[in-house]
């Protein structure tokens, strides 16, 4: 019970920190809006789906033609209506909040996936892209940007598909006879990342006028965020995180090594498949809307492990909220300056020295 109380306290604490960071971030921008006004505007912007319309559309696949596709339109209603000036409501609800919420979702996704990967690989240097997810997404996105005719599904879908194809490819390469040794997976991931990096570079070199857009995507960005991105990403990240949380105890046991885990009653290979698949989907959802944002998935799990210990039942939810808070804060820096920066630059610029600080203080060895 003691552990349970501790887990609840940390989880609620980091969640409140995330909310505080998000609200504070929403006050910052070209127009100053006080915190109380922001809070009311955010409550006004809070909306729940009230109706869903399903309809059949079609997607054009090259060489296949039109493929029917089931689509859904959701209607939202806002249950709350506080008196906030229209202009401020517009700035908070339609400009700042989508970006902040997306930042929180992406940060949480990367941190959760990073936590799972570090536990899975029993290696504190693992991050969400270790099995090629980000590299795959980069190839998909950059190709869709440079050669839209080749991949006519839009940047996000191409990135998402590229991420999953890369992760699945690495898994297949590292699997033999139903067993996937972690060391092989790690090496296959490194090799595939290098290979996909070459493809990305090649595409960029030949991307002509779209080189700037491609580079911007690669550095990680949230400036194009809108509610539609949130609608796509949030459900995947929430559902995926809940599934991973359900496997938190298995992940703890896996830390003792696969043979031990087996004798303790974990179906090792099946658990590894679930963890890999779900964390890859979560990472892909984040990367496909925000590009490659480094260091969140590496740093946040580290820091949280130092704070709350290695138990994934606490580590996963707290990392999620802390990851969200960290990325929102970094993105606030990215957009608050005189010129908009890709947020990936900020996370790496802040993250790398912080990581080195940890390393110098010998805290990393404790992981």
């Amino acid at each position, binding site marked *: 019970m003691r552990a349970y109380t501790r887990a609840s306290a940390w989880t609620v604490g980091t969640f409140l920190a995330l909310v505080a960071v998000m609200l504070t971030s929403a006050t910052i921008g070209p127009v100053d809006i006080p915190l109380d006004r922001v809070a009311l505007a955010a409550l006004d912007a809070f909306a729940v789906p009230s109706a869903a319309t399903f309809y059949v559309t079609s997607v054009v696949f090259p060489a296949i033609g039109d493929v029917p596709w089931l689509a859904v339109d959701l209607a939202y209603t806002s249950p709350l209506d506080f008196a906030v000036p229209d202009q401020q409501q517009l700035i908070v609800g339609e400009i700042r909040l989508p970006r902040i919420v997306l930042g929180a979702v992406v940060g949480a996704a990367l941190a959760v996936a990073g936590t799972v990967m570090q536990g899975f690989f029993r290696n504190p240097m693992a991050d969400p892209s270790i099995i090629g997810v980000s590299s795959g997404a980069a190839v998909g996105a950059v190709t869709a940007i440079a050669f839209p005719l080749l991949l006519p599904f839009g940047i996000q879908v191409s990135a998402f598909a590229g991420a999953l194809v890369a992760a699945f490819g690495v898994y297949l390469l590292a699997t033999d006879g139903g067993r996937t040794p972690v060391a092989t997976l790690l090496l296959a991931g490194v090799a595939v990342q290098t290979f996909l990096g070459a493809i990305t570079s090649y595409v960029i070199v030949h991307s002509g006028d779209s080189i700037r857009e491609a580079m911007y995507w690669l550095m990680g960005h949230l400036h194009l965020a809108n509610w539609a991105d949130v609608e796509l990403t949030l459900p995947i990240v929430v559902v995926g995180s809940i599934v991973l949380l359900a496997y938190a105890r298995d992940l703890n046991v896996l830390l003792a090594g696969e043979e031990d885990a087996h*004798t303790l009653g974990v179906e090792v290979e099946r658990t590894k498949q679930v963890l890999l698949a779900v964390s890859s989907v979560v990472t892909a959802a984040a990367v496909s809307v925000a590009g490659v944002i480094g260091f969140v998935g590496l740093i946040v799990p580290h820091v949280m492990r130092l704070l709350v210990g290695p138990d994934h039942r606490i580590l996963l939810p707290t990392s999620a909220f802390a990851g969200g808070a960290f990325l929102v804060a970094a993105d606030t820096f990215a957009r608050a300056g005189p010129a908009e920066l890709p947020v990936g630059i900020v996370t790496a610029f802040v993250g790398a020295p912080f990581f080195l600080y940890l390393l110098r203080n010998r805290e990393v060895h404790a992981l």
Partner: protein
Amino acid sequence: MTLDVRDVDVELGGTQILDAVSAAVGDGRLVGVVGPNGAGKSTLLRAMNGVVEPVAGSVLVDDEAVHELPSKAASRRIASVPQDTSLGFEFTVRETVEMGRHAHVPRFGSDPDPEAVERAMERAEVAQFADREVTSLSGGEKQRVLLARALAQQAPVLLLDEPTASLDVNHQVRTLELVRGLADDADRAVVAAIHDLDLAARYCDELVLVADGRVLDSGRPEDVLTPEQVREAFDARVAVGTDPATGDPTVTPLPDTEGDLAERVHVLGGGDAATPILRELADAGATVTVGPVSEGSLDHETATRFGFEAVTVPPFSTPDDAAVSRARDLVGAADAVVVAGDAVSWGANETLRDAADAAVVVGDAGPRTVAGARVELVSLVDALAALDVEPEPFAVADGGNVADD
């Protein structure tokens, strides 16, 4: 509850590690798996707990095949204490022991036996540092944490891989006392791979001697640990004796300085006079027979340890005709006879000496410290070698000097 290993073959990476291994462990039994490094002890345990799939044969827990059970069900029947585990992440002792409950706790829900973790920690004597991080514990304490984790599994079969490896004497005994107690608890069968033969003999009800992936012998420790079998399994010279304090077999490894003395030598002793001679002859590699000697005397004990054939007579009695006649046969078969100087006049020794083609008398009245004896007896070997070349009827040495012509 019984664990039954039947004709198990295991291959790892195309190499056969276990070859038709069978073993059975019943309730309340502690069975030790002994054998040299690389013999397949760990692999046998890994085949028992389902980590390694045998290519042939089966492992049954109460007639259920372990390898066909889902790992959750298997881990409720068999708990394992690994030799070493990557307890690198800083879990507390309690969190680590809780992992033993994994197979009992539903994915969404709480432990049906909330006291199980505490009980396991009490039993393995780790409750006092329940909230400390495992990485801060000593080797012996870590070992007991892993034992507590296995106990939390509440499985009727417990496997331990080298539970005493890298522990000091105190922790070795403490751990094995604990394990012995666990086996004595009702309904638990315990198997432990143990590299220390003395400890294995002392704590186990039965031993399984494994060498080269095969079971060389299994049964009571005193039956399994004979000098011949230990020598075959370990390819090492050992002396097997009985621990006077506990009555269990003790195995003493001997330096591998065995000479190539091909002779068959009979030693005439009686009480303790021949003991240094026997040791020296064993080192020299001779085939040795002894007797008559008193039962239970040091000479008899030493001869048994080295596996030498000995003619014995009851304590405090002189050899009867049968014993003398058997000894005479051995003397006749020997290339040389060595008489311990102190024992020349004991029993029928003088008669037997006279019956020999060649004899050496050693150590008459000389100081018989080990070091002193050794100095004499090195030259004894030389003397014997010389005897072989040019047989001399009598070569008498006294005062520590061996005449060699």
